[in-house]
């Protein structure tokens, strides 16, 4: 794990699903100065960042340990932002079905992107789909209010 710091944080971690939790804990430990509430950080941002890194490792990098995931974090006073980039060829986020529809409810996968959309204020993919930016703002009145429309 490497760190290049300015007003934010950059991590590059090898593809290893066992490293996700530690990386997310580290990022969250650096966000305490933000005005985003601890509860929203620990639920909304933790979920979003965890799912983004997991998707990058499992689907983007196809579990290939020779590939890495880059996480760029900006800690603003009124928001936190993370950009997660993998070394895969990307995907079309519009092609992922809604896991809450009755026909998909019993599927054992496919909820990560949905949770990111529900819990974050903004979710943006680059054109090829191998980079996602997550934004959580401080001013949302509800702990769980998000509703990004990526």
């Amino acid at each position, binding site marked *: 794990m490497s760190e290049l710091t300015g007003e934010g944080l950059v991590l590059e971690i090898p593809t290893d699903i066992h490293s996700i939790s530690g990386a997310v804990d580290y990022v969250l430990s650096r966000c305490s100065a933000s005005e985003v509430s601890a509860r929203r950080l620990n*639920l909304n941002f933790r979920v979003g960042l965890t799912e983004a890194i997991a998707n990058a490792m*499992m689907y983007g990098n196809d579990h290939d340990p020779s590939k890495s995931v880059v996480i760029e974090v900006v800690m603003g006073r009124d928001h936190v932002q993370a950009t997660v980039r993998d070394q895969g060829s990307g995907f079309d986020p519009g092609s992922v079905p809604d896991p809450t529809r009755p026909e998909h409810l019993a*599927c054992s996968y496919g909820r990560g992107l949905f949770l990111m959309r529900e819990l974050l204020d903004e979710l943006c993919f680059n054109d090829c789909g191998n980079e996602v930016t997550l934004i959580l703002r401080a001013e949302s009145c509800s702990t769980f209010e998000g509703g990004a429309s990526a």
Partner: protein
Amino acid sequence: MSFQVSKVNDVTVIEVEGQLIVGNRNELKNKVLEKIELGEQTFVIDFANTAYIDSSGLGVLVSLSKKIREDGGELRLSSLSEDLRTLFELTKLDTLFQIAEDKERALEGF
């Protein structure tokens, strides 16, 4: 992160300590499948000491529930924190599982 397995009457109780996430979901899956192989049919998975479940953790619960039901058994969940309950409600998985307030209530009526 660990899974404590015990038995109360005929019910296998698994307590998830820490997190249920992509890095340890298969450990839980294998523990339950081992018990199914031994003929166990009724399960309670308790989250009283669980801080976080990710989408992979939710997914493994879905697949275990399906497997247990196919074998004629039943899986109940218990002791979800407010945050964990929110994840179940957002994904509508609260409609798929029987979720009890605590382990004792989950064991009632098996």
